[in-house]
């Protein structure tokens, strides 16, 4: 029988894997141990015989098959490169669909509810409210314009005062304050141009009875021939018969411009 501890050494010897020191030690043991040397002899016989064991040659066909496989594989790798991307995209698409289908439905519902709610609110209560707000706003703008106009009429610059007067054309519903201010300007403004434009502005407000009365009263206060002529035209246009008396009074003035005198006479006859 051989010694168990030399098993590895014997197989190492057959494989030529021993270091010189190991080999020397083993050889020394083999001279002393018959069991081990007999075992080695038997193993070596078989070992040497195995070297002559043959393996049949693989057929030449195999190389061709391998090359074909390699080529196919390379093609498939090139094919799958974009394929990988599309599959990822497909997967993302699936996840997208899965994740958004319900939230999308919910958000749609919410948007529809929002529209419905908005329509309901504006068509009922809120619509009126907004209209009121709009009215309030426009009346505020109106007031602002009036205030601005009144302020402009106090302006020392004649052109500014004319600008103020021109605002009255934008004021749809002139109240008493505006009419009073305009009449005061018509009677008292030192600049004839301002008074002329005031007369023009007031003639557009002639549907107010106080404007008409104010204009008639203003006839005797006008001393400028241009104003006298202009106011005569306005009275003719308004067909204001109550102004005849004022014009007759004007004719009594001795220093009246002859041109104006003719015009006034003509106006009186036309009015009557």
């Amino acid at each position: 029988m051989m010694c168990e501890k030399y098993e590895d050494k014997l197989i190492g010897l057959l494989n030529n894997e021993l270091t010189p020191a190991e080999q020397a030690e083993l050889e020394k043991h083999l001279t002393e141990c018959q069991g081990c040397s007999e075992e080695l002899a038997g193993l070596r016989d078989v070992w040497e015989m195995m070297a002559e064991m043959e393996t049949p040659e693989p057929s030449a066909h195999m190389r061709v098959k391998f090359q074909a496989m390699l080529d196919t594989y390379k093609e498939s790798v090139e094919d799958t490169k974009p394929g990988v991307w599309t599959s990822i995209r497909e997967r993302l698409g699936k996840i997208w669909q899965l994740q958004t289908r319900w939230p999308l439905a919910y958000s749609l519902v919410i948007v529809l509810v929002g529209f419905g709610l908005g329509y309901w609110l504006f068509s009922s209560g809120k619509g009126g409210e907004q209209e009121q707000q709009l009215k309030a706003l426009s009346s505020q703008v109106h007031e602002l314009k009036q205030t601005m106009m009144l302020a402009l009429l106090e302006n020392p610059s004649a052109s500014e005062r004319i600008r103020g007067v021109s605002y009255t054309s934008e004021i749809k519903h002139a109240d008493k304050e505006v009419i009073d201010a305009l009449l005061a300007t018509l009677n008292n403004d030192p600049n004839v141009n301002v008074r002329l434009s005031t007369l023009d502005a007031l003639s557009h407000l002639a549907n107010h009875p106080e404007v008409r009365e104010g204009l008639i009263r203003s006839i005797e206060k006008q001393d400028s021939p241009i104003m006298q002529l202009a106011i005569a035209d306005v009275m003719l246009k308004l067909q204001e018969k109550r102004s005849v008396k004022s014009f007759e009074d004007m004719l009594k003035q001795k220093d009246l411009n002859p041109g104006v005198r003719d015009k006034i006479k003509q106006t009186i006859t036309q009015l009557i």
Partner: protein
Amino acid sequence: MLRVKAGDLDRMGLLFERHHRSLYGFLFHMTYQREASEDMVQNVFYKMLKYRHTFTGQGEFVAWMFQIARNTLKDQAKKNKNKVQQLPAEEMEDRLPGGMSADEHLEKKQDKASLYKAMASLSEDHREILTLNRLQELKYGEIGQILGISEVAAKTRAFRAMQELKNIYSKMER
């Protein structure tokens, strides 16, 4: 193989030239079926291409290749459970080298046939390790890697396999 892993797939052709014979030899001695072995060589190279990213480069390429070959063998064995293994002895007899006297030739032929038979009757573990060790001439370190055992365990197993082979063979010769 690392170049193959990096995408240079043509390098696989070089590896095929270098290793397909030893791979075929191993598979043949484990199965004794030529066509099946050829198919398995093909299969192993395909798997090496497909799973090239799993090659770390830390171990030997040969070890990795034989690991894949062993797995392929196991898969094949599952498929062929019912098939009887065909002994190669008769087949091999025609392939012996000539140039010897008739008696010498006959004697050698018989010896060899016995050895093949002895080899074929070994347990699979033992046949495997001797194929790797003696026929493919791998070192025990590599064999250990392939079989997933230590180098020392590989040596011990190889020794036991040699003993078994020797005993079977000597019985036949008697």
